[in-house]
């Protein structure tokens, strides 16, 4: 990517974000009720989008070669276990990442 392509990419990320933040204030008023389909999407989208982002993070994992996705699988299990135990985002994220780094550097 050239520098100007990078600038456009960052600008588009900012534009997409600003669109989602400013649009409600431009379109809706606090007097009129929000369209039902919009509030439905508000409840239904987040879980689906974060599911998509988890898959996106793992898109380059090859289960047929290398570590066969084992470091990822083990570390995700560690993240989930830590999180169910402590419910502290930082502990879960830090623990899982350290686990993954140790696995890919020393084991696989």
């Amino acid at each position, binding site marked *: *990517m050239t520098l100007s392509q*990078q600038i*456009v*990419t960052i*600008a*588009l*990320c*900012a*534009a*997409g*974000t600003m*669109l989602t*933040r400013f*649009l*409600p*204030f431009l379109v*809706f*008023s*606090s007097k009129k009720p*929000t369209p039902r*389909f919009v509030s*439905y*999407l*508000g409840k*239904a*989208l*987040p*879980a*689906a*989008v*974060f*599911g*998509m*982002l*988890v*898959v*996106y*993070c*793992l*898109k*380059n994992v090859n289960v047929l070669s290398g570590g066969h996705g084992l470091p*990822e699988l083990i*570390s*995700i299990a560690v*993240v*989930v276990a830590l*999180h*169910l135990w402590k419910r502290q*985002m*930082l502990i*879960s994220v*830090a623990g*899982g*990442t350290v686990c*993954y*780094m*140790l*696995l*890919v*550097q020393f084991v696989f």
Partner: protein
Amino acid sequence: MKHHKKKRSAAGAALKAAFPHTIPILAGFLFLGMTYGIYMNASGFSFVYPMIMSLVIFGGSLEFVAVQMLLSTFAPLQTLLMSVMIQARHLFYGIAMLDKFKGTGAKKPYLIFGMCDESFSINCSAEIPEGVDKGWFMLWVTALNQLYWFCGSTLGGLLGSLITFNTEGLDFVMTAMFVVIFLEQWLKERRHYTALIGVAVSTACLLIFGADSFLLPTMACILCMLTVFRKPIEKSLEGSDDPK
């Protein structure tokens, strides 16, 4: 002169009231921001990138994903749609804050610009003490949170080059973060239709279209599925907690 002094004390009182609410975010944003900065540095970007991105985007999830997008080939349409999808939840923060932001005057554009998840949840739920100006209170919450994230990311970007240990595998921090957010969503729901739709559709599209071009079809399919299965999904969402 008198008016000016009154204004200053209103801002000061609001800062005093707002700061304690942001302390947990201070720790979280410094840690995550620094990790993000180090991650960008390890991906070959100077500290200027995380610094600017923390100012103009100010959305953790998207900023992490943006690193990947900056490393791939230039795909403007996908970048824009991906940003909107990742940030879509802000639409609902906005709807929730329509009333609260009323009468905040010149502060309003920045309140909207800087409304990340954490600022939203504080501004939405905090009981602002009587006598404290609510516009100033919310402005401080928003600005302090952005300052923490800015400092964390910039520091991470700067310190990244000083790190002597092997950073291989550090990129897993993004995966871990999304797994945690996904898990939180999962625990909030009684039935997991939408979470499963997200994972199943993405996996199917990944297998069909490949790692470089599965995002656009995935986003389109998710929206279609949510529209087609609206009835059962809506029913399953009843009784679940409202999204924060």
